[in-house]
């Protein structure tokens, strides 16, 4: 359905445009003076200043793997994040946990877990799809590197970024 927008009827001084221009310049000039005299600050001096403390809780930064209170790596290499990842940034190679390991009953863990941060679009689907609460989007946003290889986060780096996360569901724990 078409909507007919009524054109406003301009007064004669409005049709001159000059008063409008002057009004706009006056606002710009007031900001200019305020910034010049240091009354107002609009630019953040990045990277000396960072906006980390302003980040909201739901901020989506680099995805990372976490361990829990029992120092268990939570990822079981189910590869659902690899499947859901829209830019196909994730590559996982699973392996069997050896029988002498403390967590041998979990049976499976990632042998390698690579996230290509050039490809990652920070959509957070990996976190959403994870059935094991193992991957989370952290607040790290400054991912830099001097080569393509450096921009691939391997398993070690992902656990470094992720750290320990407490209070998750521990479905693999023995019943008391």
């Amino acid at each position, binding site marked *: 359905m078409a909507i007919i927008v009524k054109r406003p009827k301009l007064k004669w001084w409005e049709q001159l445009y000059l008063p409008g221009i002057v009004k706009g310049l006056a606002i710009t000039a007031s900001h200019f003076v305020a910034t010049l005299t240091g009354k107002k600050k609009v630019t953040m001096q990045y990277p000396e200043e960072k906006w980390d403390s302003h980040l909201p809780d739901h901020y989506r930064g680099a995805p990372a793997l976490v361990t829990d209170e029992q120092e268990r790596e939570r990822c079981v290499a*189910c590869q659902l994040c690899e499947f859901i990842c829209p830019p196909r940034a994730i590559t996982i190679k699973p392996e069997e946990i050896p029988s002498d390991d403390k967590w041998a009953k979990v*049976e499976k863990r990632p042998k390698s877990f690579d996230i290509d941060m050039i490809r990652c679009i920070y959509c957070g689907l990996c976190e959403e799809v994870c059935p094991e609460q193992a991957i989370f989007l952290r607040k790290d946003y400054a991912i830099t590197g001097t080569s393509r290889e450096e921009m691939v986060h391997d398993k070690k780096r992902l656990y470094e970024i992720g750290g320990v996360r407490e209070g998750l569901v521990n479905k693999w724990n023995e019943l008391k």
Partner: protein
Amino acid sequence: MSEDLLDVQIDGVWHQFPKGTRMIEACRQAGVEVPHYCYHPKLSSPGNCRMCLVQMGMPPRPMPGQDPAEPDEDGHLPISWMPRPVIACANTIGPNMGIRTTGELTESCREGVMEFLLANHPLDCPICDQAGECSLQEFSVEHGKGSSRFRERKVKKPKNVKVGPRIRLDDERCIMCSRCIRFMDEVADDPVLGFTDRGSHTVLTVHPGHELDNNYSLNTADICPVGALTSNDFRFQMRAWFMKETKTIDTNCGTGINITVSARQGEIYRITPRQNNDVNSDWMPDSHRLNYHWINSDIRLTEPLIKDGGRHRMAKYQEAIITTADKLRNFDHSEIAIIVSGRMTNEEMLMARLLKRTLNVKDIDIIPRRGESDNYLISEDRNPNTNGAKSVLGLKDPGASIDALKKDIANRKIKALILLQEDPLTDGAFSAEDLKPLEFLVTSYPLANPTADLADVVFPGACWAEKSGTMINVTGRLQKLNKAVDGPGQTMAPWEILRDLIQALGGGNGIYSSADIFNLLTKEISDFSGLKLEDIGDQGIPFLDTGVTLPLVEREKARIAKGEIVGV
């Protein structure tokens, strides 16, 4: 209406089925899937999972003195529905029977069965290899509850048990369908599996002192509807949903077992049997199934090699072709012989025949490869396409002239040998002494091998998974081989090598694909005339009459005739 056909109403629609059809099969043929776990058409039906419960009804029986019900205008009697459900897998249809696969009773039965099955089932789908192709997952989406009412503690059972060299058992995942037990008993004739303990503590176990080490043991992992039995070879390698599946045939022996090759990003992760009731039913031997790891290995030949001054150097494919053609021109046609492989397709054999014609060569043969039949699916003939050699190359007794050829080489009557897709030194068909008198040897093979060491030109030949074509199995069935993955490096299919060699020797031939060669086959070889590649289909077609039968298939036919199994 024929006497053998019975009227059956399924979900309100009347159909006709032969007498003796199981209710579950009637529903399947009517396009309605009845969920089931324990039922398998190739095994007996114990009816123990109760998942296939449906509502059944028959025409009412008149009370004494009452008139029988009047049929409606289509001749169908009214149905009075039974208040309790019946299992669809072990019951056969009756005249004027009604089956309801939907409705309150059926739905509540399925929900109840699912709830009991899931009560003790672990929540380890993220680590379970069956996830993605698990009946329990599928049916719990359709008939399960979102949350569990089970407040008690789940029963603990043995996990990660090594029941055999190739099979791992997780008893907590087992839903007691007994398919594996019945398979080992009825098909593999090695009844080592069984249930022990009772009630919710029932566990699947191997008989004490025995192992699940039968050469058909991996079929139990295929038919396991859940992840209780999993293959050690495939364990944790790749998730089911990532893999691209290609329908093709096995080339380990003359049976030509129908298989599905599952690959991801050019790497093969597993091979599973594909149903073909005339060839392999639903099964395949472990030895054939696991014989694929060399395809992704480092010992593959990836570049053509040309011998210069006693040493091999890597070459471009084109250069290798031209070198071979130039060298072959130096010999008289009576001094050249061609040996092709019984592992090559009909198309490749036709190209070999054309090369024979181009070079005007007399000697062409295949290297025979024989073993023992296991009285199940493994054929005595370990070449998958001996019948193709008979039909396409016109050999009466394939492999018969190999000994004469050896003598001719020793007498220096044959000075140049074209040896395709074979490594006779490893197989023992030739010794290094046999090949030494040759002045020129050209070989192709997928792997680095001792015969290639002696060769003047070596081509990296594509293996069975990297090419398309057709083969004829021992029973004379023409079946299609489909390309599943690309070969590494400059690997070429044998038909491409042969085509380019013919081109280099005798000019263009206008062949660009193996389908082109099949068209040529229908013109050149009388057996193939009038055939179309599309006609062959996924299941193959009966082609030659060889009189050979497959023991396992024959036994299955006998069981179907006796009514022990459904068999479709």
